[in-house]
């Protein structure tokens, strides 16, 4: 279902270890305008804790998260 969520930018951090996905996602979100959505792909299971924490800390909205085993998907809407 989440595959149908609209997004404005994709960041694929497959192969990168935490906290690199957090760092790179933060950089991309800084660039987006309020309300735009980032689709983030990770392969480090630490992201399941780190990315929701990042969204909370920044005041962004985690629209959805999906754990596919070797891959994790996140949709984050940049907050105001």
């Amino acid at each position, binding site marked *: 279902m989440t595959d149908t969520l609209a997004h404005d930018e994709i960041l694929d951090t497959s192969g990168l*270890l*935490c906290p690199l996905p957090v760092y790179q996602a933060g950089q991309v979100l800084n660039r987006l305008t309020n309300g735009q959505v980032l689709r983030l792909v990770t392969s480090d299971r630490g992201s399941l*804790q780190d990315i929701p924490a990042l969204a909370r800390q920044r005041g962004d909205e985690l629209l959805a998260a999906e754990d596919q085993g070797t891959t994790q998907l996140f949709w984050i809407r940049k907050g105001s």
Partner: protein
Amino acid sequence: MRVSFFREQTVTTVFESTTLKTDPLVRRFDDVRQLLPDADQPTPIVRLGRTAGARALYLKLEWLNPFGSIKDRAAAYMLSELLPEIAGRRLVEASSGNTALALAALAGLEGIPVTVTIPEGAPIEKRVLLRMLGAEVLETPDDLCPVDLPGDGAIALARAIARSRGGEDYVWTDQYSNSANVSAHYETTGPEIWRQTQGQVRTFVAGFGTCGTITGVGRFLKEQDPSIRIVAVEPNAGHRLPGLKSFAEASEPEILDRTVIDQVVRIDDETAYAKTLDLFRQEGLMVGPSTGAIVAGALALDDPALTVAISPDSGFKYASFFSQYLDQHPQRKDDQ
């Protein structure tokens, strides 16, 4: 090897037939790396006659290293060891600035690209200098990895960069765990101090940071005379003293050997910044704020014995910090 490895590098130029030979006695060199220090070519020690009164307190001026700080020593040692395995990869290092500056300069001479993860709170002067040296600079929040490495976001990021994608793209110098950081001080800084004081040094004072200096010098001096007192200066949590570490908020480096340390003195930012200005105004020594902390720590000992304290770098890279400090302390703007 190591420092001498770089000093022995020969430079071939089209003008070689007319070039003067390197001669350290008249301070003539063919390559900036030949300026790296050792017991025959030490950084100076200067007595603090005005701030320390009758006490024999000497400051070792590490900003006179070729790339501007004590980190030149560790960077040279680490890089010379890693050169054979770099082979087309990038270097990555977490640094509050000084190690990165030395690494970027030295690696640049070898054509090796450098990525630096630097705490967001590092002064702008260091970030600009790194970019001038061609380094990729990733400014990193300290709380980037709160569970794994609290307070050490830059280290966590450098480690992740080095290990991601099979670790094939980067070589991590890892100054916090690299024994070459200790060796640099055991083989150069320690012997320099021993020779410069004619073996009379009784107390040595340095800051907690990567802990290469305190461990390497401490180990060397204890081997010469176990009664020499080794004192570490530690800032408070939340400090603004780049290069120093508070272990109330940061992890202790693997290379720290607490068995060589006799005493830890804690110094707050206010004391450190005030002492830095004292050194500028009373001694004519334009040192950085970590030097202020270390000198304040040395003076807190009230020790009449011959003491050597480390001045890790100069104040030039902290002008933006001191601009704020002077604005916040108007009574110190022109109090001399």
